[in-house]
């Protein structure tokens, strides 16, 4: 059975989680077996999907299936610390695993550093994929990405962590323990001395010692962090994986989307398309903001009875202005990235926090509409 992976990505606050959940629900209701991995859903949305327990495993969302009873939806919320701990426990004997789990540097690394979340999201995706391969639980996995500084972090952070843990810096730090540092040239020795003295000044010797013992413990148990990160990265390039870039019709969000689209292209990762959320809909009425404003001005001069109509016209003018500005931004994006499939979801007057709301978003997503 072939397994499809969809990665939802975009700047913070554009509705990634909602879009991921809506896509997942729609697919499940059309008979697919879907697992959606969310990172940090809003409380009420999480509750709607039955995600009240944080146990780092997918839970079935009750009552969701296709018309003929086929199809199912599982949802989970990523617990990054737990995922990291499980990686450690799964790759080291109990004693060594405990040593790593107790290491202060590991504790800091696994719970707070920028990038762990991305790395663990990738790790979890790999696990879900492996499970699906093994027992056929799912034929579609949808991943939401962490709310990071930049959408590109999702692609870059695992590599960064991997190359750090396998890299030169770590080898130097742990050099005394390995007897390295001997036999290097005079200049290198000088650099090395300066280097360790500076690090001692910045970090203090205790931190260096913690990092050193962490690396020593991890080195013998993990088959290379970088290889692990590389393997997941390759998964993202494999057939069956595609990216959905999500944006709002604002300059910053669209710029972020543009960066991401270009990056996917250069890394030959398949882009499914762009979802433009919270778009102000234009009216079918051919009445521009300028015309509406001019008419409103005219009516206001006529007297108090005309005020209501004038106000309605100003309301319309405001909407049209927002619509025109958003249309302009969207057109700029499309002009710069021709051939990128795009769909828009109109701004809804209320927030989404139940299954029927997600269903409505799913319907809107599937409607054929050009931005």
């Amino acid at each position: 059975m072939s397994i499809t992976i969809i990665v939802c990505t975009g700047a913070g606050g554009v509705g990634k989680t909602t879009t991921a959940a809506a896509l997942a629900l729609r697919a499940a209701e059309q008979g697919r077996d879907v697992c959606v991995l969310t990172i940090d859903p809003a409380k009420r949305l999480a509750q709607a999907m039955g995600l009240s327990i944080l146990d780092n495993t997918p839970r079935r969302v009750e009552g969701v299936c296709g018309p003929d009873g086929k199809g199912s939806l599982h949802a989970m919320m990523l617990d990054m610390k737990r995922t990291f701990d499980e990686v450690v426990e799964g790759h080291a004997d109990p004693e060594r695993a405990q040593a790593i789990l107790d290491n202060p540097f590991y504790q800091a690394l696994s719970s707070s550093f920028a990038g762990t979340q991305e790395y663990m999201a990738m790790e979890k995706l790999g696990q879900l994929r492996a499970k699906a391969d093994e027992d056929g639980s799912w034929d579609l996995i949808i991943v939401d990405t962490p709310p990071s500084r930049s959408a590109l972090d999702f692609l870059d952070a695992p590599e960064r962590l991997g190359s750090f843990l396998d890299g030169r810096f770590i080898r130097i730090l742990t050099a005394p323990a390995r007897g390295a540092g001997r036999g290097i040239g005079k200049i290198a020795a000088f650099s090395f001395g300066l280097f360790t003295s500076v690090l001692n000044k910045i970090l203090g010797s205790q931190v260096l010692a913690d990092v050193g013992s962490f690396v020593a413990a991890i080195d013998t148990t993990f088959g290379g962090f970088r290889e692990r990160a590389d393997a997941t990265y390759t998964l993202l390039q494999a057939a069956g994986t595609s990216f959905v870039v999500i944006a709002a019709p604002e300059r910053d969000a669209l710029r972020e989307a543009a960066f991401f689209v270009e990056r996917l292209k250069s890394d030959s990762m398949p882009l499914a398309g762009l979802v433009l959320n919270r778009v102000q809909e234009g009216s079918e009425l051919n009445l521009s903001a300028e015309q509406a404003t001019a008419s409103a001005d005219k009516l206001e001069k006529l007297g108090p009875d005309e005020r209501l109509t004038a106000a309605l016209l100003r309301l319309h003018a405001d909407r049209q202005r927002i619509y025109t500005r958003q249309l302009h931004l969207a057109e700029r994006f499309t002009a710069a990235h021709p051939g990128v499939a795009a769909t828009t979801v109109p701004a809804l007057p209320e927030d989404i926090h139940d299954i029927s709301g997600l269903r409505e978003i799913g319907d809107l997503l599937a409607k054929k509409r050009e931005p």
Partner: protein
Amino acid sequence: MWPGVALHVVSGKGGTGKTTVAAALALALAHQGKRTLLMEVEDRQGIAQLFDTPPLPYEERKIAVAPGGGEVWALAINAQEALLDYLDIFYNLRRAGSVLRRMGAIDFATTIAPGLRDVLLTGKACEVVRRIDKLAPNAYSAIVLDAPPTGRISRFLNVNSEVSGLAKVGPIRNHADLVMSVISSPRTAVHLVTLLEEMPVQETADGVAELRAAHLPVGGIFVNMTRQPMLTGEQLQEARSDTLPAESIEQCLNEAGLGDRGGAIVSTLLREANDHALRVDLEARESARIVELGLPTFFLPLLSQGIDLGGLYELANLLREAGVR
């Protein structure tokens, strides 16, 4: 408002217009010959885009003149430069930079090591604040920091606890303590930007609780992109229940020369009025939740033409009128 506050930290959910509000605040605080510094920390060059200038280097630059002769300066901090700065200021070690870079230590300190990056960034902001105490000639009257989003703000500012996982003692710990002595003092105010929508308001309420729990000084709430109700209370009521007088509206449209469009125009305007009424209701509900937080609150309008330099001055003026000094 906020006498004695030197460092204004502006956070908010993604997409709420943090950078815009931070810039408007820096302009408002720079009135009458004062000089403020607007800082950003996320390598996004959001300030340059907002003020329509080339990308900002790691260097303080004047970017705008405030009404009444004040000046706004800007600085885009990045962790790497901040680290070199730190080495220079505290250890006179700027030249060690290239060695550190070659060995991968700069990468380690600025992207990998938990908390270090944040200490470096907040540390730079505090260094600028301390110039005021030293009566340095390059001191600013206020600093506005365009900070990471609400979800990460407590962790970003609470460098002490972040670093404590990494270092219980040692130089980096001492530096974190120094930074904390500014950030958790009454000289700092952490402001949150929100929209009148459910999720951003919830995140704001959570953020306020989190900041208070971490003993970080909460400043005000900036409610961005609000829509002015364009109809009276009675009209909104009618718009909600679809009972606006369609016939008299059609008559008025005829008077305005828009009558040739048949009924389509009336029904569209009525539907838009209904949308507007729902939106006004939602905003009123969320507004009430914001007021419950009991913090100084500032409402900024949605500028339908988008944010440009003119819009920024408009927002700054509104903040001044609302008492921001």
